[in-house]
């Protein structure tokens, strides 16, 4: 009985999260965002709803940061600029996740 209720709860949370995410996708389309920006923003909303370790988005930030100078020196400054923006987005996500982790650690310690 308890298991069933838990399952129901998880399902309803997943459904609610999915609605949020779909809403974000539609918002991005409505505002004429680029596909990459919609994907990143959707990911951003998803990890706020379902936190992940900060090291994951930090790794994403490193990945885009490494790509930036490669595009820059190969003469694609505009692409490099765009990729630097992605690195910045992932930096924001990593910092937010870091703060979440810290709060969670504190809560666990208090318990």
């Amino acid at each position, binding site marked *: 009985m308890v298991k069933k209720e838990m399952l129901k709860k998880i399902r309803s949370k997943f459904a609610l999260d999915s609605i949020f995410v779909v809403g974000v996708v539609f918002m991005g389309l409505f505002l004429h965002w680029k596909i990459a920006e919609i994907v990143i923003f959707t990911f951003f909303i998803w990890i706020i709803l379902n936190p992940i370790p*900060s090291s994951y988005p930090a790794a994403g930030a490193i990945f885009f940061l490494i790509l930036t100078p490669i595009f820059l020196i190969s003469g694609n400054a505009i692409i490099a600029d765009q990729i*630097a923006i992605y690195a910045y987005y992932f930096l924001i996500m990593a910092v937010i996740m*870091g703060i979440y982790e810290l709060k969670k650690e504190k809560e666990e310690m208090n318990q």
Partner: protein
Amino acid sequence: MEKIFGYIKSNKFYLLGFFVLFLVLLINSFPKGYVFSGGDTSQFIEMKNNLRGLFYNWQGKAVIYYSIFYLLDILNVSNSMQLSWYLGLFIVGSYISFGIFSKLVFNTSDRTRSLASLFYALNLYTLFVFTGNSSFSYYPSLYIFIPALSGFFIKFITTENNLYGVFFVLVVLLGSSGFANVAFVLSFFIFLIIIFLAFAVLGIVKIKRMLFFRLFMLGVFSFLISAYWILPVIPEIKNGVEKLRSSDILEFNYIIRHVTSPLMNTLSMTYPSGDYFPDNFPYENIYFFKKIIMMLAFLPVAIIFFGLSRLRLFEEKAKKYFLSFGIIMIVVAMIIAKVTPPFEIINHYIFSIWGMETLRGFDKTAIYFPFILSSLLLITLSQRENKKWLTVLMIIALLLPLPFYLGKIQQNMSYRFSGASPRNKDFRKSKLSFIVKIPDEYYKIRENINNDSEKVFIATLPYTSNDGSGISNFPKWKMYGTDITQYLYNKTLLPGNAGYFPDWNFAQAFNDKDDIDNQWIAKLLGMMDVKYIIYHKDSPDDSVLNSQAKIKKLENEGRIIKINDNDYFALYEIKRDYRIPYISWQNDSTQITGLTRIDERLDKIRNNSQGALFKEINPKKFEVQWNKDMIGKTLVIAETYDPNWKAYAVSKNGKEKEISGHILARGYANGWQMDDAGIDYSNIDHILIEFYPTRLLIRGLYMSFATALFLLAYLLIYYYGKKRNAQKNQI
């Protein structure tokens, strides 16, 4: 002795850092006989003769900074050698300041502190500063004090110990020259708010009512200690911001879009225009290195991102501080970006707020970014001390501003040579340079001018092409910027390129007017209390071509008298009859409005004017003798119109009353009509003319001095009490 050895042993890397900075200074020494001048700032030479003037003309701003150069000048340190002092003060000061921050906020190992402090002193931003045109002045000096100020602020808000607040306020005084450009006050205030909020989010700062009271008191004391320069600025702030908004020299909407730093540049600490290192790369033999450095410019941020990915391994305090600085980095990077993607909308609104437009320049906000990166690097390195490869990467990051280590940053790296090919990036080959040699001829006329005790001006002609800001252009000795020769003379220089009359430049009209009969220029300059004219033959050829015959004619007609003639300029004295003294009485209110009936009007003004007897109390305050015959006349001071000039009727019992009816006199100057119904003219002893901000400066000085004394007394009592307690505990 043992104590000293112990200190050296435990701080060997930090002390080694000073040695590195010393080598940087040594290799970047400046050629003998050269000075720095270019753009809208120039080196302040001959400081022993100029500090008093600077104090009054700049209303106390930057006087602390330039006091050091005053002392150097007294000690006969040459102007070229003083350039090394500008660089030295900046990099050594920054190094020490970050060391203080590190000790205060995040005490780490000696090696880590040394590496992060060196990074703060020598990075691509500081290289940008010293290859640009504002470096050899007070202008970027806030950079030196950012870490110390932030450190004391953070300690104050986290410990709520008043002692740190006292140190913060005293450092505010010490670094006050950095706030001489008031935009830096605003940007620093915003920066402190961001720090506070970030620390509050992470729970490092506990929000309490008492803390806000303490912060309020910190603000009050910071204001009081800065009163000597803040008070004089207040009457000018509103005008300044409005001028910025309506400026046709720097159109705001254009600037906000074009003086931006996209995220890519902010993260790599490179200036977006491509005029600076590494884009501006002077080393022909290692040109392949340019792309490597462009790639490695991202290394410091990559180290920080690596730190972020290993956050779970950090100690709790390090985690909190790292994330706080992470938030600060995110917000500051956004503000620096201005209206570039992805911040076009948010920053459009932010920079539309009244006052925010003063932060339009790149450096107003970017100045904080190196400190943020250095702090994050400090924390990352401190938490990953066992990783030797990280130290190696950090040393590589330190080598990124390569020109600092290879030397001659102004001789071959200057922004002036950005368009040249690597082999032509040389101050000797370039058409223009920031380091220039003032021709000896300019020194030779000092005796003529400086021995003259009359209160008169020096005008320069002809008008030359410039960027619209009024800077001078003397290509013969590669000078394009604020006229540095002004510091050689004890009379104020009126450069021909600057504007004095609204919507009209007389020097430009003199150049443009085809009519050979130009006697009006001698009369006009005479009306403006100009005694000497320096006619620059070192100006661009077209300017000389347009004006030389006209000047010659004035000379032949005896309207101007030649005193000196050489390859660079001719020095003239204006015929005595044409000159109206600095302070004078005028019977009418004839105005000069461009060339319309100018001869007739100038004659009328001259015939209706007579010199006033006056005493100079300081360069911005004059006591004028009064007699009843002057009722109904206009008192004129030959200074460009500014509503902050005030005249006071001082009665026989010493009471002052401001004279209303401040008018634009002679089309450019300040005048007061002596027909104010509120003044009892029969009871006037004398008239006082004063530039109002100077009055506030003197009042502010008392306030600042009293505040500094109070804080020093607090420190003395604090340490005395601490010592006494320690002695008691020992007993």
